[in-house]
């Protein structure tokens, strides 16, 4: 089995490199997505003022993470609705139990010759 040596780049890191047409296009795509997010997820970055890769990277990260966060928050909100529904069912169940207790009480009172009839 061959092990191939791969040289490492030297001094390649340059976040001050002018932003390319490709990164500008990527930012414009993300900006369109950002505009459709709720306001609380928006960045305060004006993309036309972005001049370097490092600045572009900050914006790209913000919007990408905001999209994930917005979806996670929405999923969590949906999940919070589920126990609420359960509680309604529980309340309904309690209501049923209360109704049964009332009915039992009424039966008893009827047996006792109570005067209150069911509400109409």
């Amino acid at each position, binding site marked *: *089995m*061959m*092990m*191939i*040596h*791969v*040289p*490492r*780049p030297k001094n*390649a*890191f*340059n*976040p001050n*490199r002018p932003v*390319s*047409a*490709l*990164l500008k*296009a*990527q930012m*414009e*795509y*993300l900006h*369109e*997505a950002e505009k*459709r997010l709720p306001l609380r997820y928006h960045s305060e970055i004006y993309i036309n003022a972005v001049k370097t*890769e*490092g600045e*572009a*990277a*900050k914006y*790209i*990260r913000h*919007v*990408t*993470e905001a*999209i*994930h966060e917005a*979806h996670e928050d929405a999923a969590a909100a949906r999940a919070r609705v589920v126990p609420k529904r359960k509680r309604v069912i529980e309340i309904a169940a309690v209501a049923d139990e209360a109704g049964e207790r009332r009915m039992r009480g009424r039966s008893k009172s009827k047996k006792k010759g109570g005067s209150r009839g069911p509400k109409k």
Partner: protein
Amino acid sequence: MPPGLDKLQHIVVLMMENRSFDHMLGSLKAVNTAIDGVTPDLSNPDTNGNPVKAQALAEFQAQLQPDPDHHFPAVDLQIFGGDPNRVANMQGFVKSYFNQQRDVGHSQKIMYYFAQKDLPVLTTLALEFAVFNRWFASIPGPTICNRAFAHYGTSFGRVDMNLIYINEPFKSIYDRLIGATPKHTSKLYYYDTTSSTMEVTNLLENQPELFGTFPQFLDDCAKGNLPDYTFVEPNFNDHESDSGEEVANDQHPDHNVQAGEIYIGQVYNAIKNSPLWPNTALLTVYDEHGGIYDHVVPPACPKDQFTASANDTGTGLPFAFDRLGVRVPAILVSPWIPKGTVVNRVFDHASTPATVTKFFLGDYAPRSPRETSADVFIEPNSGAVDPARNLLSLDVMRTDCPDFDV
């Protein structure tokens, strides 16, 4: 059924940025004459009319500044050389690069290609597995519309970098897979959230669960958890992260080519060292040529159902998507591929959704005219298999595949 196809369960595509076939793999002609690389007679005229030879003088960084023009009108000049009769001749690369700086000496650098020793990962993979002599960009234009072909099999009529509004009825390959019955799995792995994804922001916006990061890709490989179809994206920008400096590794000029070599090696190693190696095929391909010289004339192809207007192309002529873009490097890796395979059939990026769809879903409609006419690089795993077309053809899995110290 050949065992390589029978065992195949995962297809992975790694799409790099903006380098031509001759620029990256042209040197291999000297090693294997079946590879359609650079020969000593290849040249382009400069603006003084002097021939400029293709030479192995490419550098990893700082040579191609400014970024060579690869928008539609510039690529038109590169392919047709300004010929009034519009006969494609690949003679306009130096002229096109000259237009950016009006510097004759600098414009000649567009003809430079890498020596084999400079690209140990890409050239080793090309020589060890299957290299495609005729894989072309889908459009003679820039990144975004070409990447769209890899995801949708069409660019919906776009030839530029503007926003692509996704139109029904052509679904992305990811939507086709996860919406199928029985359901298939699919994921796009971008490098990290600071690099994010390119072109498919609409998918990120509406289906972020389709996306993962490169560390998650490595973890999924190690645990044998890769989806049926995986699309891997490189790091598109230089940025700081929690682990330090992240150098762009997409190889887009003027990003460092060695950083991309390491990335390709990491993707390959992750698959090779995973339990999925016998069941996985990896395609490494470049989205377009980036304005850099290649000598093969892009062929005509069946047109798409869209037409770009003369105004959109910027050439004064409409474009019916009936010609492919400039040739790009493409290599298919699998332990079932014989060493030194060279493929001469014509492919473009529409071949990716075509192949993945046919392999996992069989017949599927609707797909774009360009996709339905695109060739597949992996034969469908049903019915009779034509041995002449099957690249995963070995009866016994190879155990001599290389490793990279990345």
